[in-house]
């Protein structure tokens, strides 16, 4: 898995040159990551009652969290 964050994990577009404040607000409030931060692809996300997992079909595991 690449750890380079080139893309917004909320909307999938490049981080550079755009305002992602709404994406960050969503991520902080109610959303797991939706896009791979490395390649910008949509993640396969499974939300569970006490956590979530996210996987990029190209880059591999993109995150696991309890909450």
């Amino acid at each position: 898995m690449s750890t380079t964050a080139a893309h917004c994990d909320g909307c999938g577009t490049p981080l550079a040159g755009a305002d992602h404040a709404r994406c960050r607000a969503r991520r902080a409030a109610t959303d797991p990551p939706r896009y791979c931060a490395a390649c910008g692809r949509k993640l396969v996300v499974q939300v569970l009652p006490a956590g979530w997992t996210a996987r990029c079909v190209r880059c591999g595991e993109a995150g696991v969290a309890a909450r």
Partner: protein
Amino acid sequence: MTVIQSDVLDVARRQVLEGGEGLREEQVLAVLRLPEEALQDALALAHEVRLRWCGPEVEVEGIVSVKTGGCPEDCHFCSQSGRFETPVRAVRLDIGSLVEAARQTAQTGATEFCIVAAVRGPDERLMAQVSEGIEAIRAAVDINIACSLGILTAQQAQELEDMGVHRYNHNLETARSHFAKVVTTHSWEDRWATLQLVREHGMEVCCGAIVGMGETLAQRAELAAQLAALAPDEVPMNFLDPRPGTPLADLPVVEAPDALRAIAAFRLAMPRTVLRFAGGRELTFGDLGARDGVLGGINAIIVGNYLTTLGRDPQEDLDLLDELSMPVKALSETL
């Protein structure tokens, strides 16, 4: 008969609190139109009604999606529809993870665990997966199992009954007069028919709504009356979380006072139902919402995360119930 707004709470005190008879549609509309200065009185009355007819216990539930995304239906609020360009990708949950999700839910003290799938209705593969999952949960976790699998045939309702499903969720979502603006791939009547099948097969009926999908206050009152006519065992109240990529993405989040009026009005329309705080409450109310809701007619909550979005830390809700001296309903009381 026209309901005078200033009188509606006096009428409700006699009719609902003392008599146990829910408010009618025009009376519900009067509650929804109450001025802000009357809101606390409405919530206090709804709370009294809830205590009088349901008791102090709060029913706790957890939910999980076993089949996420790729749904053929076009419910305009839903990020799991395959018809909209949303960030949600299709995924299925394996049985081991399903059992673990049930275990996590039971650890919060929850008595209900709802298995949900984003489908029009279940196919043979999904029914087999649900059957296997229920069997595995029963072997490992002591909890009531509910399902939400869309539109059912009579045969499927029978199969779910045979699996021991305790409660079946199928929301009407919005008023009959507004439904076609929210969903075009099936009808309000399709949903109503499934709810009748659920009842005929002895499962508890869970049927709720999403407030804030562009309906008028009159349509919100219409919905409350239609739900009351159904007399469901449980009514989950959701507040629209406008999801990116859906047709309702640009609608505003419901204002907290309007949401609280809706909670009070629905409780006064259905004094005996399990009225559950469900999705969207975090956005609509922030952290204060749980307190206002459970002191305004709510007597059940979904704890933890939702199907594709994250909820509050369950412990925050449980601490609040403890602070308010509201016991979590025990499993033995639900059977």
